[in-house]
């Protein structure tokens, strides 16, 4: 599935380039509508589904943000989307909670840990699968990729029991290892494809100049595979940042929880619901990753388009 989406991104981009040059979009779509009125109607009809799409996607965010900027009583008194006097009280309250700060720190640590471990495990494997022909290669590659199909639901209870037996329950390291394990098949899949695209002549030339394999990986393969590495890092970070059901069973004490777990608990802990705080907490868990994602997305696109890999 990963690859399909990948193709989509590329197909879309080339299409943008191709069609963008060939004139305004409505000329192509409204080819039969000769009159200006017909063209106008068509343009409106084209945009209605897109406006629905944007509203469908954005409304929950906007409503949550709106509630997060209100006072507790105002939520009931003033249901409008725009608060009369937006205030940041709810954010201050959430940030002041030790539960939030601890979970935030845990999420960051587990996120970076997962990204690092996933890359560390998958780079050598992907290099081996991409560059070596060895006995059992097909079988081992299949063996690495196939477990990707296992739903994490099937892992919940067994991993819990294994963690209890191994004394690994309630440790950040356990979360890092588990999330990395879930990401490795995808990471290897992406990297094998990427490394195969790096011309092996580069490595052969370096080999003639006496570069060892580790030097070639360090100075040729890794820099050229940087876009793939960043992609994998972001996906691993996303998994650690958002994953809920496994952290739910693998952690037991408040100090080890990540943000989704803490947010989940927040709904039940208070006697009287503090809706602005709940909303602010939600926004605070969403915003950091969206910031990272939008920045990195540009970087990835740039990394591909600047043509370090041709």
């Amino acid at each position, binding site marked *: 599935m*990963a*690859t*399909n*989406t*990948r193709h989509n991104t590329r197909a*879309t981009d080339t*299409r*943008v380039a191709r069609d*963008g040059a060939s004139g305004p*979009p409505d000329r192509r*779509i409204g080819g039969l509508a000769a009159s200006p009125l017909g063209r106008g109607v068509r343009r409106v009809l*084209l945009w209605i*589904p897109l406006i629905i*799409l944007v509203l469908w*996607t*954005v409304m*929950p965010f906007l*409503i*949550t943000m709106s509630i997060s900027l209100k006072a507790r009583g105002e939520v009931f008194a003033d*249901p409008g*989307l725009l608060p009369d006097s937006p205030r940041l009280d709810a954010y201050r309250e959430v940030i002041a909670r030790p539960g939030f700060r601890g979970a935030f720190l845990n999420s960051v640590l587990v996120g970076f840990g997962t990204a690092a471990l996933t890359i560390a*495990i998958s780079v*050598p*494997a992907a290099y*081996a699968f991409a*560059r070596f022909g060895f006995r059992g*290669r097909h079988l081992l590659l299949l*063996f*690495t990729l196939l477990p990707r199909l296992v*739903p994490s*639901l*099937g*892992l*919940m*209870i*067994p*991993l819990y029991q294994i963690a209890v037996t191994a004394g690994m329950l309630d440790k950040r390291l356990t979360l890092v290892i588990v999330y*990395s*394990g879930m990401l*490795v*098949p995808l990471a290897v*899949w992406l990297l094998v*494809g990427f490394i195969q*695209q790096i011309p*092996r002549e580069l490595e052969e030339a370096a080999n003639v100049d006496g570069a060892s*394999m580790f030097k070639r990986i360090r100075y040729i393969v890794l820099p050229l595979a940087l876009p793939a590495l960043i*992609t994998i890092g972001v996906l691993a970070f996303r998994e650690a940042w*958002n*994953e*809920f*059901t496994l952290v*739910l069973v693998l952690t037991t004490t408040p100090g080890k929880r990540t*943000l*989704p*777990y803490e*947010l989940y608990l927040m709904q039940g802990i208070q006697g009287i619901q503090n*809706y602005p705080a709940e*909303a602010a907490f939600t926004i605070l868990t*969403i915003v950091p990753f*969206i910031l990272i994602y939008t920045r990195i997305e540009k970087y990835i696109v740039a990394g591909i388009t600047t043509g370090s890999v041709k």
Partner: protein
Amino acid sequence: MSVVNSGTRPSLSPGQRPGSPRKRQRGPRLDITLAGQSKLAPYLFSAPAIVTVSLLLAYPVLYGLYNSLFRAPSLGAPEEFVGLENYSDMFADPAFWHALVRSAVFVFGCLILGLILGLFFAFALNRVIRQLRFLRAITIAPYIISNVAAAVMFRLVFNSDFGLLNRTIEFFGFDGPGWLSNGTLAMVVVIFCQVWTDLPLTILLLLAGLQTIDTSYLDAARVDGATGWKRAWHLSIPLISPQIVISTVWLSYSTLTGLGVVLALTGGGPLKATQTLPMEMYSTAFTDLEMNEALAIASFILILNALLTLVYVTVARRYGTVE
């Protein structure tokens, strides 16, 4: 299942794609031509990944299947082999059948809503050219947030006291229902929330299909006088049926095994109206503390998931849409 993948499909032969000039260059592979490499190197390199994947993905599943055949006669007593007794107990339990029906409603509802909305939005996006990147970035947003965050947001939207939805309904002079206190409506809310989180990938998959359609087909149909709807129904949809099958498989997988949204949004309530199979598994394991019975439910879900995938692919193959 990522949105920003940067690799391409790895072929099964190392670095030699069919049609590339390198294919003719027979013989010496890199590991033979280059110095400093032993025969052992590829095994050493791939070992960490293989060990990680085996220990964390393959082994737990087998462990779960195996342990679903055991049971402790009383709490704390050593487990004994009981064969398929956990499964026969499961099938005799009305709660299991209730959860199965709830899951069926949930999965079916999500499939219908997800595919209709996915196609609708994919067709809409397919006609956009300039703003596509911007719109696509917005479309992806629900995909990059956690299930819990989505559930909290939907609780706020569907809140019966102050939720914007009920206020809008009241504005038109009707009484807004208590969305999360009515069993049927709670299921509707859960379906909407699950579809909301799953839709980005569905849209992107279907959009990818639409963008690979050769426009000359559509132009020919247009010259023959086919309207937009006819072109969509008789041309585009049959042509992207592989992507529709993939979307169906993925949506079905994601909803049948999905726990996060339901757990965080309703917790199975009200009155077990949204107690799907994963919820039943979770509460059996961590509320009733009957791990082995929960493992039987988990195994059932995994097997059902595999069977459903098989069914979709077989049906698609019979109708000649997927080779």
